[in-house]
């Protein structure tokens, strides 16, 4: 039973961490352009090749 004293705070802490990460990501505008993020990976870094 004493394991609970550790496990529950850990579970809650991890959950809070995830929640905080999500809030941070929303604030930073990570979800503003989801389709764009998918497309940008295809852009070549070197400009002058074409």
């Amino acid at each position, binding site marked *: *039973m004493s394991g*609970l004293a550790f496990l*529950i705070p850990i*579970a*809650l802490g991890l*959950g*809070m961490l*995830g*929640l905080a990460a*999500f*809030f941070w990501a*929303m604030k930073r505008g990570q*979800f*503003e*352009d*989801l*389709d*764009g993020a998918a*497309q*940008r*990976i*295809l*852009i*070549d*870094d070197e*400009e002058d090749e074409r």
Partner: protein
Amino acid sequence: MNAPLALDTQGSMPLRDSRFTVPGMRCAGCISKIERGLAKLEGVDAARVNFSAKRVAVRHHARLGEDDLVEAIAAIGFEAQSVADNPMARDDRESAALMRALAVAGFGMMNIMLLSVSVWSGAEGVTRDLFHWLSAMIALPVVAYAGRPFFASAAMALRHRRTNMDVPISIGVLLATGLSLYETIAGTGHAYFDSAVMLLFFLLAGRALDATMRNRTRAGIGALLSRMGRSAMVLDESGAHRTVAAEDLERGMLMIVAAGEALAADGVIEEGETTLDNAMLTGESAPQAARVGDTVYAGAINLGNAVRVRVTEAASDTALAGIARLMDEAGQSRSHYVRIADRASRLYAPAVHSLALLAFAGWMIAGAGWYQSLVIAIAVLIITCPCAMGLAVPAAQVVASGALAKNGLLVKDGSALERLAEIDTALFDKTGTLTVGEPVPALGHLTDRQAAIALALARTSRHPLSKSITRALEGRGVQPVDLSSVQETGGNGVSAVFGGIAVALTRPDTDGFRIATGLRIGDEVTNIAFDDPVRHDAQATLDELAAAGIESAVVSGDRAGPVSAVAGDLGLEWKAELHPDAKLAHIEKLKSAGHHPLMVGDGINDGPALAAAHASIAPGSASDVSQQAADAVFLGRSLRPVVLAVRVARRTMRIVRQNFTFAIVYNVFAVPLALAGLVTPLIAAVAMSLSSLVVVGNSLRLARAAQ
């Protein structure tokens, strides 16, 4: 990789942010082309594309105007339109708030579930109490935070002595939380924090989804109505000029409107004489003359000379802003969401409340004890929450409007989809509806030399006729000649010198009925006539309509000759030289014969017919009257959105009927079980959430219906 390209050459010049919609973006290549192309432009600090919203945000030096940027984007190969300062900011905030509430509810739900599962699987005594206390500590802040959207809406409804969908939800959640808290303090062994939080989570998921769809639909309307001038040159009494932003203009100010500028406010011309492009308000592509004493409206583009205009209405009082507001109100799917949901819950919510009350009273009389009676009442309240019923129509309509908006058709009203689905006859106006409504020059008779000179002249001017000549000639690969001493005199065209000969694009030498311009080289004048071609996919669209069992016909106010030519080409029946009231009478006749006519038209003369028809669609180039009267507006040069609208509307109604059937079947089974006390609040919350999700999921199938 897409790092902003900094330019220090301008040093301390103030920077400005402008936004543009670029509907033509389709791929990664477009993103990099636009961002890099703009970044190379002198005076541009950074450009960032938002692909999902099809928008570009540009940070640039103040001396670079929005028009220059639009032209720069056009040179890269995309059509762009500037948008007012993030009109969607408010909606974005709302949906961001919903997302945050959803995240909090999700966090709470998972952790409480974890604890609940241990309790169900047999935790006893102190452990169980500890878990209940933990659940309470998680649930109370979570309910307080995540429940706000519902509590606020319910409180608003109650203040107005009405009831809506959020009232039973709020009561259910608060009762379940309050009862569980009491249980936890008393230590009697039952808690329903999991039910309350799970209910909130699933409801928020539905709301967040709805908000996202709504924002996408509204983005299109914003783009359509963003053509008003952003600022104006104002002359004060001392004779000094200064630039004033459109929203700071006041009645009585004197604006100087240069050639090529869009008017930023309504007013009366005090000095000067010019021609205006009023297409935004009237849908007429031909320029209109305006002289001293004439009233001019914001959004009109000055094609001729600089004029002085005394402001009569500014900022949000302009005719254009009024239209924008009306369209916005009509286009807000939120309004029909709430309307339909409220109509349903006006009857349904009181029934639910009394049913829950009856359940409580009934079980009390049956001697079940107040605690058990209350639990059953909560289960009834939650399980009968009219969400599935309330979502049946709006979910389908919102998804369908979103799918159509992506294809260039903006549906202004949810009920429009219902009516569009019932269409069996379609009537088309000719000019601007079957045809593009924009002048396209006939250039076949020009020699290569003439074409090269015409292009060189037209390139220097912003007049719409010049622009269309430029587009057409550049499309044919004509190389412009080099001109010297180019001059543009408002109302008189462009003149220049080429190899010692005076050349000009000016008024035609005949004063015919059609729109034309004259190309003068030396003393010789060649006329360039402008045609209004039929939309390229008109035939395909009409064939598809016919295949869907819809008869089409042309009703036009134009003369019989041109109308029969267009109608003959497309194989349609036609009626010409119809006055607005004759069009109206034609529609009434069809309606009294039991038909459901669809009217597609753009002119002011179509207004009454658009309003009277069973359903109506107007092109984006239409006059304000038509756009307001119409149920839907389509953008671009394609006519296909019309047939898409009908097809998607029919699919939508099929889905709506499925949703209703499902919601009714669900209630028929669930309510008796809940009344009989066979359902705990947790199962009720799961069942209710599932029923809502089934309805939303079924509606989501429409997202691909428009392809």
